[in-house]
C-alpha cells in the first residue's frame, strides 16, 4: 500500500494542509517532510497513524479543532488501483462521503500498535533498542526479535510481567499473599480445626473412655460409703464415752443445789422484764404532776377584749380599700381640669363659626350623621365644578383648531405604472448581471486557451481536439499490461540468467578445483595405460628376441614393472577418488548442458526483447495516432488524455458563457425603449423628460426622482384630511360631555337644600360651609368629650363620700377618738388596726396553753394506770421467795434456774448415750461402754479416715475423667466454628491453587516465548544478519567491517561487531552511539526482510540523525533511499541541513515537502 496524497484537513494546529507524495516513482520512493516546528512533525506522524486506524476518543490533537470536526484525508494506491479516503473520528469514507469498511485500507492485518512499532521509529525507540542490547549483552534471538517487532527492552518487560508471579512464589517476600504466607495460614487453620473439631475416631475413643470412667467411679463410690459407715460407728462410740462423762459431772453439781424453793420456771425472765419498767413508771408519774401545776398558773394570767376582736374584719376591709381611695381623689381633680378646657375650646369654635349667641350648644350641629352628608355634598360639588371648567375649555380649543385647517387639497398623478416598470427593469438588469456574464465569458476563454496550451506538443485548435479519435480505456489498459508483462518477462529472464551464470561459474570453479590434480583425469589415465601397454609390448618383444641380453631383459622388465606399479597406484587412487571423478564427469556434462542452455536463453531473451519492443511499438502507435510524439510514455499519454478531457470541458464552458452574454445584451435594449416612452407622460415643466439619447442609468435616475416626488405629495394630502375629520369628531364629543356636567350640578343643588333644610347653616352658601367643615367636625368631638368627662366626675365624687362614711363608723365603734378631718382618717384607722392585731395574738397564746395542760393531765393518768398491776405482781414474788428486795429475789430465782439446767443436762447426756449405742436404756448403754477406751477408738478412726480419703480421691479422679469425656462429647453440637474453619481451609487451598497455577502459567509461558524467540532467530538470522551487516558497515563509515555471532559460555549466541583492525567486540564494549547505529541497522534489515515477503506499508521515521555528523547523515539517507526502493519511506525532520544533504546524496530522486508554518490561534 502506498500513500499518494495525505491531507491534514483539520488536525492539531493544521488546517487544510496537503502533502502530495505523487504517483509511484520509478526508483527511490523517499520523501523528506520538512517542518520548522517540532510539534508539526509529531502531529504529522500521529495523523498518519490516525488516518489508517481512526482517531482515539481522547485525541490530544483536538485542541484547535473540536474533536467532532477533526478530519484527515488521503489517496491510497493499493492492489493496483487508487482510492481516495477521508477520516472523521472513527469513520472512514470515500471521496464522495460514502462510508467505507475499515478493511478498505489494506493494512495486511498489521494492528495499530504493530504499525507504530514496525513501520516507524524515532530517536527514543532506537535509543531504547541500543540500551536493551546492552542489557541482554547482544543476545541474538532477542536482538533480532526486538528489531523485527520494534519492541525494545524485552528483558525488562519480561521481568515486569513475571514480577507478580515471582512475588507469589519466592519465599521471604513479605508483601501480599505469598505462598509462604498462605501455607502458614493454612497450617494455622488446620491446627484450629484439630483443636475445635472432633472427628469420628476421636469421638469413639471419648465414648469408650467415658464408659470405663463411669464403672470405676461407681466402684470407688461404694468403697467410700463403706468407710464412712465404719467411721460413723466408731465416732458414735467415742461420743457415747463423752456423754457418760458429762452425765456424771452434772449429777455432782445438782447435789450442791439442795434447798432452793420451787418456783414457776418463767419467773426469772418475768422479774427481769418487770423490775426496770416499774422503776421507769414511778419517775414518769412524778414529772407529769409537776407540769400540770405550772400550766394552770400560766393560763390564769392571760385576759381577752372580745368587742375589739369583733371589729377586726371591717378594719381589714377598709384598709384594703385605702389605696383605691387615693387614686379616686387624684382622678376627680384631673377631671375638673379637663371640663374647664373643653368649655374654653367650645367658646372659641362658636366664635369662629359666627353662630348666634342664643343658640344652645346642642343645637349648634346638625342632627345624626347629617354632618357627614354635608361633607360628601361639598366634595361632590368641587369635582363637578372642575369637570365643567375642563370640558368647556377643551371644546373651545378644538373648535379653534378645526377652523384653522384649510379645506382644499392638491391633485397629483398616480405613480404606480412607473413604479412597476422600474422594478421590472431593475430585476432584469440589476446587480451588474451583464458585466458578470461578460467577465465569465472572458475567464472561460482564458481557461480554454490554457487547457489547449497544456496539450502541447499536440498542435491544433478546439474543433480539431473535439474531432480527435481517442482509444478506449480497456484497449490502453491491455496494451499497457502487455508492456508490463513483457518487462516482467525480461526481468525474470535476466534474474534467471544471472542465476544460471553464477551456477555456471560455480561449476567451472568446482571443475577447476577438482581437476587441479591432473593425474586423476581420464586423459592422463589413458596415456599411462598406453605407456604401460607399450612397455609390455617392448618387454614381450625383448623376450622374443633371441639375441637379447640379460641386461636388456632386466631393463625392459624394470620398465614394465615400474609402469605397472604406477598404473596400479593410479587405479587405486582413482578408485579411492571415484566420487570426485564421478562429480567431475557430472560437472562436465552439466557444463556442456550449460552451453546448450546458453543458446536457448539467448533465443528466449531475444523473444522477450522482441515482445517488449512490439508492446512498446503498439503504445507508440497509439501516441502517434493522437498526434503526440512516438516516444511519449504511456503514463504521459494517460495524463494527456485527462488534460484533453479538461480542455473539452473548458471549451464547452466558454461557448455557454458567450451565449449567455449575448442574450443579456438584447434584454437590456428592449427595456430602454419602453422606459423612454412611459417617462414622457410623467414629465412636468419643472422636471422635463430626458432627451431620446439618454442612457438607461439616466432614465432610471429621472424615473426614481419623479416617483419619489409623486408618492410624497399623495401621502401629505392623505394626512391632512384625516386630521380634519378627527377634530370635528372630538369637538362634538366634548360638547356632549359639557351638557352632562351641567345637568349633574343641577341635581346636586336639590340634594344640598334638602340636607340643610331648617338648620342655621342653611343660610350660608356651599363654599362658606365647606370652609367651616373642619371646625364643625372638631366642635362635635369636643362636645362629646365634655359630656363624658362631666358624667365620670359626678360618679367618682359619690363613691368617695360613701367610703369616708364607712371609715368614721368603724373608728367610732373601736373607740378610736381624735381629729375628724378627712386627711387624718387613714392614720386613725391604722392605729385601730394595730390594736386589733395585738388582741388576736393574745387569744392564740391562750389556746396553745390550754391544749398543753390537757396533754399533761392525760399522761399522768396513763402512767399510774400501768404502774399499779406491776407493783402487785412484784410483791407476790417477794412474798413467795421470802425476800425483801428485788435484788434478793433475782439471786434466788437464778439458783432455781441453775438446778433446772443440771437436771436437763443429765437427761440429755443419757439420751445421747442411748442413742449413740442404740441401747434400750441408759444402764444397758453404760454397761456396753465398760470395755471401750478413748485412745483405741481414736486410733481406729484415724486409720479409717485415711482409707476413706484414698477412696474419695480415686472416685474424684474417675468422675473428673468421666466429666471431661462427657463434656467433649456434648461439645459436639454442630456449631458454626468448625464449618467456618473448614470453609477457610477450602478457600486457602483454592487461593494457593490459583496462585500456583497463575505462577506456573506465567513461567511456562515465558519459557515457551523464549523458545519461540530462539526459533524465530534461527529462521530469520541469515537474511537479517546480512542486511544488518551492510547497513552497520555503512552507518559506521566502514570503521566496522563485519557483524558476527559467537556462542558464549552458556551456549547463547551473541552479536559481536568486528572493527576494521580485526578486533571482535561484544555489544557492551561498543560506545552508546555505535550501539544506536547497530540497532538502527537491525531495524533497517528487519524492514528489508519484511519487504521481501510482503508488500510493505508506508514507513515513517522521525528525526533520528540529530547526533550524526554530515558523513553519517549522508550514509543514513543512503540507507533510507535503499528502503525507498522496496516501499514508501517518509522521513520527518526539522533540520534544514538534513534536507540539503539528502539533495546532495540523492539528487532529484528524493522528494522534499515543506509543512507550512502552523498558524497560531488568534492569527
Amino acid at each position, binding site marked *: 500500500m502506498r500513500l499518494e496524497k495525505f491531507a491534514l484537513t483539520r488536525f492539531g494546529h493544521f488546517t487544510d494542509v496537503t502533502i502530495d507524495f505523487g504517483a509511484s516513482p520509478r526508483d527511490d520512493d523517499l520523501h523528506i517532510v520538512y517542518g520548522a516546528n517540532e510539534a508539526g512533525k509529531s502531529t504529522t506522524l500521529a495523523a498518519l497513524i490516525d488516518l489508517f486506524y481512526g482517531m482515539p476518543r481522547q485525541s490530544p490533537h483536538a485542541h484547535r479543532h473540536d474533536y467532532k470536526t477533526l478530519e484527515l484525508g488521503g489517496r491510497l494506491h493499493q492492489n493496483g488501483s487508487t482510492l481516495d479516503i477521508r477520516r472523521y473520528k472513527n469513520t472512514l469514507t470515500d471521496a464522495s462521503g460514502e462510508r467505507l469498511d475499515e478493511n478498505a485500507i489494506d493494512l495486511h492485518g498489521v494492528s495499530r500498535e504493530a504499525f507504530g512499532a514496525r513501520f516507524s521509529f524515532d530517536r527514543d525507540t532506537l535509543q531504547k533498542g541500543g540500551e536493551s542490547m546492552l542489557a541482554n549483552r547482544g543476545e541474538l534471538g532477542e536482538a533480532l526479535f526486538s528489531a523485527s517487532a520494534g519492541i525494545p527492552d524485552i528483558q525488562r518487560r519480561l521481568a515486569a510481567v513475571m514480577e507478580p508471579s515471582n512475588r507469589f512464589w519466592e519465599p521471604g517476600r513479605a508483601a501480599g499473599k505469598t505462598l509462604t504466607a498462605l*501455607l502458614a495460614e493454612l497450617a494455622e487453620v488446620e491446627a484450629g480445626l484439630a483443636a475445635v473439631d472432633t472427628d469420628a475416631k476421636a469421638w469413639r475413643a471419648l465414648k469408650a473412655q467415658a464408659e470405663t470412667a463411669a464403672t470405676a467411679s461407681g466402684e470407688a463410690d461404694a468403697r467410700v460409703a463403706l468407710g464412712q459407715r465404719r467411721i460413723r460407728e466408731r465416732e458414735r462410740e467415742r461420743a457415747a464415752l463423752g456423754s457418760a462423762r458429762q452425765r456424771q459431772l452434772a449429777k455432782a453439781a445438782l447435789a450442791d443445789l439442795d434447798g432452793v424453793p420451787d418456783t414457776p420456771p418463767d419467773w426469772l425472765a418475768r422479774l427481769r422484764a418487770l423490775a426496770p419498767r416499774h422503776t421507769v413508771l414511778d419517775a414518769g408519774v412524778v414529772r407529769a404532776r409537776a407540769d400540770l401545776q405550772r400550766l394552770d398558773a400560766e393560763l390564769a394570767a392571760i385576759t381577752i377584749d372580745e368587742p375589739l376582736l369583733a371589729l377586726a374584719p371591717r378594719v381589714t376591709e377598709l384598709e384594703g380599700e385605702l389605696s383605691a381611695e387615693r387614686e379616686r381623689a387624684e382622678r376627680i381633680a384631673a377631671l375638673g381640669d379637663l371640663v374647664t378646657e373643653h368649655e374654653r375650646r367650645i367658646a372659641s369654635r362658636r366664635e369662629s363659626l359666627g353662630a348666634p349667641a342664643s343658640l344652645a350648644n346642642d343645637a349648634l350641629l346638625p342632627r345624626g350623621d347629617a354632618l357627614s352628608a354635608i361633607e360628601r355634598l361639598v366634595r361632590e360639588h368641587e369635582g363637578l365644578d372642575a369637570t365643567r371648567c375642563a370640558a368647556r375649555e377643551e371644546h373651545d380649543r378644538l373648535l379653534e383648531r378645526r377652523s384653522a385647517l384649510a379645506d382644499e387639497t392638491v391633485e397629483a398623478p398616480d405613480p404606480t405604472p412607473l413604479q412597476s416598470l422600474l422594478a421590472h427593469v431593475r430585476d432584469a438588469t440589476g446587480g451588474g448581471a451583464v458585466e458578470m456574464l461578460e467577465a465569465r465569458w472572458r475567464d472561460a476563454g482564458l481557461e480554454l486557451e490554457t487547457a489547449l496550451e497544456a496539450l502541447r506538443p499536440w498542435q491544433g485548435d478546439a474543433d480539431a481536439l473535439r474531432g480527435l479519435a481517442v482509444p478506449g480505456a480497456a484497449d490502453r489498459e491491455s496494451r499497457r499490461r502487455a508492456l508490463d508483462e513483457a518487462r516482467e518477462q525480461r526481468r525474470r529472464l535476466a534474474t534467471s540468467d544471472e542465476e544460471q551464470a553464477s551456477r555456471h561459474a560455480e561449476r567451472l570453479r568446482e571443475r577447476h578445483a577438482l581437476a587441479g590434480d591432473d593425474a586423476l583425469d581420464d586423459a592422463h589415465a589413458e596415456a599411462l595405460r598406453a605407456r604401460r601397454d607399450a612397455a609390455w609390448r617392448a618387454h614381450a618383444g625383448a623376450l622374443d628376441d633371441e639375441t637379447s641380453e640379460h641386461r636388456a631383459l632386466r631393463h625392459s622388465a624394470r620398465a614394465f614393472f615400474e609402469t605397472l606399479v604406477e598404473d596400479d597406484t593410479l587405479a587405486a587412487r582413482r578408485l579411492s577418488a571415484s566420487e570426485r571423478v564421478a562429480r567431475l564427469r557430472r560437472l562436465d556434462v552439466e557444463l556442456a548442458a550449460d552451453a546448450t542452455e546458453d543458446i536457448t536463453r539467448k533465443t528466449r531473451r531475444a523473444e522477450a526483447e522482441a515482445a517488449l519492443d512490439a508492446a512498446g511499438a503498439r503504445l507508440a502507435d497509439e501516441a502517434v495516432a493522437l498526434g503526440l510524439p512516438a516516444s511519449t510514455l504511456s503514463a504521459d499519454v494517460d495524463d494527456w488524455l485527462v488534460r484533453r478531457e479538461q480542455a473539452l470541458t473548458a471549451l464547452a464552458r466558454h461557448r455557454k458563457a458567450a451565449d449567455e452574454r449575448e442574450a443579456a445584451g438584447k434584454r437590456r435594449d428592449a427595456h430602454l425603449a419602453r422606459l423612454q416612452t412611459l417617462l414622457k407622460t410623467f414629465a412636468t415643466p419643472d422636471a422635463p423628460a430626458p432627451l431620446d439619447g439618454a442612457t438607461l442609468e439616466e432614465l432610471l435616475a429621472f424615473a426614481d426622482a419623479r416617483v419619489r416626488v409623486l408618492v410624497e405629495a399623495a401621502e401629505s394630502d392623505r394626512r391632512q384630511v384625516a386630521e380634519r375629520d378627527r377634530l370635528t369628531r372630538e369637538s362634538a364629543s366634548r360638547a356632549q360631555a359639557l351638557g352632562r356636567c351641567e345637568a349633574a350640578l343641577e341635581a346636586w343643588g336639590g340634594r344640598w337644600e334638602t340636607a340643610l333644610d331648617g338648620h342655621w347653616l342653611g343660610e350660608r352658601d356651599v363654599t362658606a360651609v365647606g370652609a367651616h367643615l373642619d371646625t364643625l367636625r372638631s366642635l362635635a368631638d369636643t362636645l362629646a368629650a365634655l359630656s363624658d368627662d362631666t358624667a365620670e366626675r359626678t360618679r367618682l365624687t359619690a363613691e368617695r363620700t360613701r367610703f369616708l362614711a364607712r371609715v368614721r363608723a368603724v373608728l367610732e365603734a373601736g373607740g378610736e377618738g381624735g381629729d375628724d378631718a378627712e386627711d387624718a382618717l387613714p392614720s386613725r384607722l391604722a392605729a385601730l388596726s394595730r390594736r386589733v392585731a395585738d388582741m388576736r395574738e393574745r387569744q392564740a397564746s391562750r389556746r396553745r396553753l390550754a391544749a398543753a395542760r390537757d396533754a399533761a393531765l392525760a399522761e399522768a393518768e396513763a402512767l399510774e394506770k400501768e404502774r399499779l398491776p406491776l407493783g402487785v405482781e412484784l410483791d407476790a414474788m417477794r412474798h413467795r421467795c421470802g425476800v425483801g428486795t428485788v435484788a434478793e429475789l433475782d439471786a434466788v430465782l437464778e439458783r432455781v434456774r441453775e438446778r433446772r439446767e443440771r437436771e436437763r443436762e443429765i437427761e440429755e447426756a443419757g439420751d445421747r448415750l442411748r442413742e449413740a449405742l442404740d441401747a434400750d436404756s441408759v444402764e444397758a448403754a453404760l454397761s456396753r461402754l465398760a470395755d471401750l477406751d478413748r485412745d483405741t477408738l481414736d486410733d481406729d478412726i484415724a486409720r479409717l479416715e485415711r482409707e476413706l480419703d484414698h477412696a474419695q480421691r480415686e472416685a474424684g479422679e474417675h468422675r473428673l475423667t468421666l466429666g471431661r469425656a462427657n463434656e467433649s462429647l456434648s461439645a459436639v453440637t454442630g456449631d458454626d466454628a468448625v464449618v467456618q474453619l473448614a470453609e477457610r481451609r477450602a478457600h486457602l487451598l483454592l487461593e494457593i491453587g490459583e496462585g500456583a497455577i497463575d505462577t506456573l502459567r506465567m513461567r511456562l509461558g515465558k519459557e515457551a516465548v523464549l523458545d519461540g524467540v530462539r526459533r524465530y532467530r534461527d529462521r530469520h538470522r541469515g537474511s537479517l544478519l546480512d542486511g544488518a551487516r551492510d547497513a552497520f558497515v555503512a552507518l559506521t563509515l566502514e570503521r566496522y567491517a563485519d557483524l558476527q555471532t559467537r556462542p558464549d559460555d552458556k551456549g547463547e549466541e551473541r552479536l559481536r561487531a568486528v572493527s576494521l583492525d580485526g578486533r571482535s567486540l561484544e555489544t557492551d564494549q561498543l560506545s552508546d552511539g555505535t550501539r544506536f547505529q547497530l540497532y538502527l541497522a537491525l531495524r533497517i534489515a528487519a524492514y528489508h526482510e519484511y519487504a521481501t515477503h510482503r508488500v510493505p506499508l508506508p514507513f515513517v521515521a522521525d528525526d533520528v540523525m540529530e547526533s550524526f555528523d554530515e558523513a553519517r547523515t549522508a550514509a543514513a539517507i543512503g540507507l533510507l533511499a535503499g528502503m525507498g526502493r522496496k516501499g514508501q519511506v517518509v522521513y520527518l525532520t526539522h533540520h534544514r541541513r538534513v534536507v540539503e544533504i539528502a539533495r546532495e546524496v540523492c539528487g532529484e530522486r528524493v522528494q522534499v515537502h515543506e509543512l507550512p508554518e502552523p498558524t497560531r490561534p488568534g492569527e
Partner: protein
Amino acid sequence: MPGLDAPFRFVHTADLHLDSPLKSLALRDEALARRVGGATRAALRRIVDLCIDEQVHALLIAGDLYDGEQTSMNTAAVLTAAMRRLDEAGIPVFMIRGNHDAASNITADLMLPDNVHVFDGRGGARTLADGAVAIHGVSFGKKHAPDSLLPKFKAPLPDVVNIGLLHTSLTGAASGGHNAYAPCTLGELVDHGFQYWALGHVHKREVHRDWPAVVMPGNPQGRDIGEDGSRSVSLVSIDRDGAHIETREVADTRFERVGVPLDGLDEASLLPDAMQAALVTAREAIGSDCLIVRLEFTGATPLDWRVRRDLDYLLGTAREIAAGLDGVWVEKIELRTTTATEARSGADSDAAGSDAVDGIAQLIDRDVLASKALIERLERDAAALIRKLPVDVRKRLGEDEAAHRATLLRLAREGSADVLAALRDGAADAER
C-alpha cells in the same frame, strides 16, 4: 385393599454433601465468607422447613447426604438435630447411602432418631399410609458399585404406589467402568414397574420421565462455579394415576456465569460500562440473596491485549461495581476474547507473519509446544514448584501423567499469550 384418601406428598432430595465447603475466590472477602459459611447447613435447614411447612408425609434422601471426606462428628450433630426436628413434626425420613456417605467415617457413629429409616446394602421396602405406599431402597455398601443395584430391588407391590430410592450415575451397563456408579438405563428403571424413581448422584437436575416418574433432583446447594445456576429439591404429590412434581429452591447462595460481550469495543474506558450492564442485568434477573458471579469476556476486540494486561485492575473494578449492587460478588474474570486482528485476517499461516509478535505466537503454537524437549524441560521446571504445594492443590494439575502434561501444555499456551500481550504492550509504548 389399601387405598389413598389423598395424594401421597413428599420431598425428594439428594447430594447435599453436608458441610462440604463452598469454593470460590470471591470468599477472599471475609464478610462473604462468613455469610456463606455453612451454606449446606442452611440448605438442610430449609429442606426441613419446607417439609414442615408443606406438612409432607415423608422426606426422601437419595444418597450423598454428607461427604466422603467428612469426618467431623460436628456434622453428625447437625444432621441428628435436623432429623429430630422432623421427628417432632411426625415426618418420617427414608434415606439410602451413596458413594460418598457409604465411605464416610461418621456413618457408623451416626445416631439418628426413630423416624429415620436407612436402607442397608441388601435393600428392602417399607410401607406407609396404611399400606397404600411402599418405599424401596438399596444403599451403597462401599464407595464403588460397578454393577447395577437394580436386581436387589423387590418387585413392585400390587395396587400400591411404589417409590424407589437409588443412587446411580444412570449411564447404562455398557459404559460400566471405574467411573460408573450403580449403572443402569432409563429403560431398565421404567421396566421395573415402580411409579416414582427417586434418584441421586448427578448434581444437575433432570426429570428424565414424567410417568412413571424418574427424577434426578440435582444437588440443592451449588458449591462452586461448576455447579452454577438454579439448584432445587422436588416437592412431589403422587397417587396411582400420576405425579405432580414441583421444584423448590432452598439454596441462598448461587453461582452464576455472566457473559460480557466485547465485540467491536475499541475504547478501554467503555469496559466498566460493559461490566456494569452485565452485572445489573444478572442482578435483576436472579432473585438469589447471595450471587457469586464469574464474568466471561467474549468476542473479538482490539482491546484483547489490554484486557489481558489489566486483568487485575478490571477485576478490582468489577468488584467495586458489584459492591454497589445488593448481594453480588465477583469471583473471577475469565477471558474468551480474541484480538480483532486475528478475527479480521483469520488464520494467517505465514510464519513470516504480519508482525513479529504474531510470528512468535504461531511458532509457539505450531512448533514450540510440539517440541518434546521443551515439554520435558517444562515438566522439570514445574516439578520443583509443585513439590512446595499441599497435596490437595497438586491434584488440580492433573491426576495422572497424561492429564498433568496436558495441563502444563495448556498453561504454557495461555501463559505465552499473556506474555506476548505484555510484549505488545511494549509495542504500544513504542508508538507513544
